């Protein structure tokens, strides 16, 4: 008997957990699966405001339901014409004010906390600062102190504050990694700054790959302006940085086909795409840096990372990202050339 009850309880909890996880989205992209200090703070505020507001809704609904059942018209009586009630009116003025104060205090304190970027502005601080530069439908990441550039896939160490310095080079975009923290706009006018923390355990649950998004309407392919975040331990991160830094000049192609691809690339593509991670002036970085393209999670932020999709992309970027800045800026490629390019690009790796 008791065993049975236990089983029931367990299955009940299992179902509840299932329903709750169904309601909280995917761990790599949902704000309801917070994976870092900032997202945690925001999630706590969400919960606090939700509790207060659900309370308000319940009170309103109770009165609402009573009114519905008790005061329907049954006869032709003329009700008493009540002017109002000072006591009641004071009650429903004061209580909401108190409720809002309960919410306002943590809101203000969190707002200041999330904007605290003193550390990154200090001289010789060793905080990790990443300059995010947004472009029509792609993202550029410059690691200031490490003096390297990468694009599309942001690589960050877990369990420490990572500072961001945000700006856009064409139209306004907005930088958002839902699971890790709220967004901040990349303006065309000025630099915005904030910080995020990527929780190690949560990152593991999310497969070490968070989804990042552009959250400000920026043109036809706004919906496709995704990026990915590889959150790895500090050691792995340091190793990645030194691997990147080791690429001083374009990597030599390994196979004949790839060498052919490199030749084509050097003719048609290198004017826009760099294959070394060194920091060139912002305005000169007009296309994603491809130094470690072979290790990307996606092609152009959205397509599966394989040769087929890569060839599709090069053949006709317009079908995948309407309005992008690459379409039509290089000669049409034959299938053979595409094969060669794909072979070459997929071989661009910095980690062995």
């Amino acid at each position, binding site marked *: 008997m008791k065993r049975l009850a236990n089983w029931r309880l367990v299955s009940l909890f299992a179902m509840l957990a299932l329903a709750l996880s169904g309601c*909280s989205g995917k761990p790599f992209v*949902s704000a309801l699966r917070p994976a870092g200090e900032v997202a945690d703070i925001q999630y706590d505020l969400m919960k606090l405001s939700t509790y207060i507001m659900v309370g308000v809704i319940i009170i*309103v609904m109770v009165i609402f339901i009573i009114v519905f059942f008790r005061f*329907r018209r049954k006869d032709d009586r003329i009700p008493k014409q009540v002017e109002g009630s000072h006591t009641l009116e004071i009650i429903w003025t004061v209580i909401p004010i108190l409720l809002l104060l309960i919410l306002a205090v943590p809101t203000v304190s969190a*707002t200041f906390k999330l904007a605290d970027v003193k550390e990154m502005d200090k001289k010789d601080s060793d905080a990790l600062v990443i300059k995010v530069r947004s472009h029509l439908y792609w993202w550029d990441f410059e690691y200031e102190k490490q003096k390297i550039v990468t694009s599309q896939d942001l690589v960050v160490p877990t369990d420490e504050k990572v500072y961001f310095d945000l700006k856009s080079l064409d139209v306004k975009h907005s930088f958002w990694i839902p699971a890790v923290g709220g967004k901040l706009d990349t303006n065309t006018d000025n630099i915005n700054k904030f910080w995020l923390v990527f929780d190690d355990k949560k990152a593991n649950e999310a497969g070490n790959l968070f989804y990042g998004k552009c959250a400000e*309407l920026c043109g036809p392919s706004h919906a496709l302006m995704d990026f990915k975040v590889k959150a790895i331990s500090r050691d792995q991160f340091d190793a990645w940085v030194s691997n990147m830094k080791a690429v001083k000049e374009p990597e030599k192609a390994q196979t004949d086909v790839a060498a052919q691809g490199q030749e084509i690339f050097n003719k048609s593509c290198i004017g826009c795409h760099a294959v070394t991670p060194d920091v060139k002036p912002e305005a000169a970085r007009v296309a994603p840096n491809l130094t470690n393209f072979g290790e990307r999670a996606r092609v152009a932020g*959205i397509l599966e990372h394989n040769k087929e999709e890569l060839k599709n992309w090069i053949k006709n970027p317009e079908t995948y990202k309407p309005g992008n800045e690459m379409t039509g800026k290089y000669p049409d490629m034959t299938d053979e050339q595409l094969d060669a390019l794909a072979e070459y690009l997929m071989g661009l790796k910095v980690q062995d």
Partner: protein
Amino acid sequence: MSTYAQKKGFGATVWDYLTTVDHKKIAILYLIAGGLFFLIGGLEAVFIRIQLAVPNNDFVSAGAFNEIITMHGTTMIFLAAMPLLFAFMNAVMPLQIGARDVAFPFVNALGFWLFFFGGIFLNLSWFLGGAPDAGWTSYASLAIHSKGHGVDFYVLGLQISGFGTLMGGINFLVTIINMRAPGMTYMRMPLFTWSTFVASAMILFAFPPLTVGLTLMMFDRLFGANFFEVAMGGNTIIWEHLFWVFGHPEVYILILPAFGIFSEIFSTFSRKRLFGYSSMVFATVLIGFLGFMVWAHHMFTTGLGPVANAIFAVATMAIGVPTGIKIFNWLFTMWGGSVKFTTPMYYAFGFIPSFVCGGVTGVMVATAAADYQYHDTYFVVAHFHYVIVGGVVLALLAGTHYWWPKMFGTMLNETLGKITFWLFFIGFHLTFFIQHFLGLWGMPRRVFTFLPGQGFDAANMVSSVGAAFMSAGVILLLLNIVVTQVKNVKVGNDPWEDGRTLEWAIPSPPPFYNFKQLPLVRGLDALWLEKMEGKKGMTPAEPLGDIHMPNASFIPFMISLGLFIAAFGAMYHVNDKPWAIPVLILGLAVTFGSMLVRSLKDDHGFHIHKEELQDEKGAEA
């Protein structure tokens, strides 16, 4: 002049409406034009939901999708919600204060035609190379970057229709200040009139910043200025401020009259005076005032810094208080009353839980630090549709049923009305409730598609199904209107039988001079007071005498048409079309020429004589 009672042919009727300065006919024009734009905006909404029903859909292209969302938002706010509210303000407010018309009937007509031509201009973009595609907020960097003439249509169209709105607002203000019947003190005005008053005052202060913003953008796009060109020392954040200094009050300009409509309905069908009338008035004014103090909460992620964000967060939360006061006052208006569930009351009743949800998510998005998560996601989409559809649109539908008999003299079918309500109400919650979650799960707004595998698929499908229900509701409403008008069963002064305010004291529809004799107002709910004393109607405040009326005029139409023509010239001048500048000049000549005619030609109006009024039957005040 006794032609007004005659039946007219079709041509004569059209001419009558083209030249009318009668607030009741202008109301009907607003209702028809606003209704038409509402249908267009609704169709755009349906396209949006079809496109987003499944991931990676290609029902419309990415570029077309951005045009559709931009036009959906712009149309619904500027060309549907505002004019439809103006329809009721025009139809009802002068009656509620016991006036024979608005203060400036000519300007009233001008306001309508400006709005109408602006709206037509904007929508012609679909046929002339593409609609605006930078969102209804038209943020500067994207708007300046946008190719083609789409954004020019936006700038010029809104400029023209904005003039109309501003004129309408000023007109209502003057009307309420100057034209109240004897005894109609401010604190005896029905709440719909009060909300018209406050909304009009807000229009007066909110539209100029929009005008400024649009002008700057017009110069940038059409005449080579660089106000928003960062490389040339311009600044795009200024646009965000200008837009939201207008845009936030705009939300309250929409919602306050909606509150007004519901206040009338709650009180009427509960057979009770509005609970806490004075605090309702106070709350309305306070909301109007605070509405100007919170615009930057639309810009929490722009990077204004923690001080600005904190201040605007707290100020925004403060608006929750007067709004809450209103909700409780409505509930307690019904408490102890005798509530009759007519169609308008269905809407009013459905409004409460819907709007409360929109209100509480409003407080949630006011929580600045958490808003960094909500901002520009489907959570915000859900929030403002709960406010605007759950508040404004439900009010418009309620108002349509409630005042239809007063405007047209016929009663919409109650059974169809209630079915419409259920379809719309269920569809509304089905469409938008789930969107809160979509946003929290990581779906940004204004996306033309989404990739599978992110957990967005099922919820988007649910949302699209909801849209189908809402559409069915709207179609049923149209059917109801057609059936009702074909049957054409006329009703009397007070068809709901529980009418409390002055509009129910006169025939439906009212004669063109409204009140044969101005009524004497002896308190709040003027007609109700008389009815309770066993009288049939209002006591007149003046002896029967001649009534002075304004003449009809075609000039408002011409002034607006001129600007419409000029806008084409201004726009195509950038393409170096040789005809552009001449067209610009021609258009302006038509406008200013018409204004000149108006200034030089004396128009004294006409008098209806006492004897004619005595012959009119059924028109007693």
